């Protein structure tokens, strides 16, 4: 795929992910386990998409949007990380492990910026609610509908813009960094993948594990380990 259509497509996916994350539908196409493999399939690197989905799904799950709290825009970061990892792999910049970890680290900055932008967007939504008051006074249904859809559009533009800028900058910044890391570090970066997976599992465990439920984790885990060890022995 050419560079320009590619960047447009990935930005469009970013817009869709931003909408699904917090503004509309919320059918979870924005979750990394869905978005990353789809991006991988579209750009011809399904295995890389799956790997990014596995690594990035769990850590962000503990960012619970309770009340009005909004954590980092991890889903948008996951889109950028996947697209950049695919770009770097296709250009054969380094080993897969090094590419994946560098892309993920870069995407954290994008997530942080995205989080700040969401706050600005919510402030912009205040204008819409005041305009809706006027529309209600005139019993103007169409205007209220339009104002609500403008909120959705803001969200789409935020995702589209952030991914566009994040991906474009990443294409400029990451190749020299990626080639700078020596290939001998591949094993160490490979271990970082398992560290990341472990951190996700550990973070999610905080949602389920209490004093009351701990035995419900320990018993299946112990039985599983026993079966695994027996399997290894025999």
């Amino acid at each position, binding site marked *: 795929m050419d560079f320009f259509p590619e960047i447009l497509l990935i930005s469009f996916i970013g817009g869709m992910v931003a909408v699904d994350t917090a503004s509309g539908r919320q059918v*979870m196409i924005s979750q990394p*386990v869905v978005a990353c493999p789809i991006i991988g399939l579209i750009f011809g690197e399904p295995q890389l998409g*799956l790997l990014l989905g596995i690594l990035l799904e769990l850590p962000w799950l503990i960012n619970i949007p309770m009340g009005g709290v909004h954590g980092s825009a991890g889903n948008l970061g996951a889109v950028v990380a996947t697209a950049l990892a695919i770009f770097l792999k296709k250009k054969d910049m380094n080993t897969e492990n090094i590419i994946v970890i560098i892309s993920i680290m870069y995407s954290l900055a994008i997530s942080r910026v995205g989080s700040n932008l969401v706050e600005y967007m919510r402030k912009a939504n205040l204008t819409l609610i005041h305009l809706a008051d006027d529309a209600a006074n005139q019993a103007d249904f169409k205007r209220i509908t339009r104002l609500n859809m403008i909120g959705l559009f803001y969200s789409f533009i935020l995702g589209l813009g952030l991914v566009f800028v994040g991906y474009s900058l990443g294409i400029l910044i990451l190749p020299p960094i990626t080639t700078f890391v020596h290939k001998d570090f591949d094993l160490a970066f490979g271990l970082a993948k398992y560290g990341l997976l472990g951190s996700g599992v*550990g973070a999610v465990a905080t949602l389920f594990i209490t004093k009351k439920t701990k035995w419900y984790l320990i018993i299946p885990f112990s039985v599983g380990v026993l079966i695994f060890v027996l399997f290894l022995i025999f």
Partner: protein
Amino acid sequence: MGQIRTIDLVKVLLRSFYIQSTWNAERLLGLGFCFCLIPIARRLFSDKHALVDFLQRHLDFFNSHPYMATYALGAIANIEEQAITKNWEDKRPISVFKTRVIGPLGAIGDTLFWQLIRPALGLIAVVLLYFIGIGGTVIYFILYNFFHLGVRINGLFDSYSKGFDIVRDLSLRGTQKYFDILKYICASFLGAELVIIMSKIVHETSSWKGLFVFALAAMVSYLLVRRRKITIDLLIVIIVCSSIIIGMII
């Protein structure tokens, strides 16, 4: 004035997918809630003055978990219909009802979806992605939306039939025992999945290094997140850097 029809409720259901579009700090889901009820307003009111009252009433402050909002939407449709057929002069009970359901709808939805169903299915999806690839994504998507759409659809039609009485079903105390059972199930899933992931790591790396890093990262993350001492992006930076350093040493 007409009676609310099933098609109106279906329109409300479709609009409810966009209830959170204009989330803001002043009235939270206020505009989205009013937007969702427009098909009901179209059906119930022909007098402009009553219509303006209706729209102003529902543009007011409202908050809920987005999926659970259909419980409030259905009940409000019923109550607004009752207000017309029984010729209520005072419409304050409608606003009081809305205020009363905000707490339970938020608490039940956040606990059920954000703290239990989404992370549990996320864990399952990660394991499925490992073993069956893109099929895991499809299974996750179908399973999650089975629960999600089930709650949305059931919420709207059930609460429309019950009206004010839906408040009894939305007690946090009543639902707590089901959440506890779900927590036990999720903890068991986690225990079993830990073994599956660990065996996969051993199989992939053919050494214990990967397993060691995984277990260490899981324990450190559990402790740090549980004590709320860290943001998730900082946690990722620490874990990834430490893993690389450990990888260089061992």
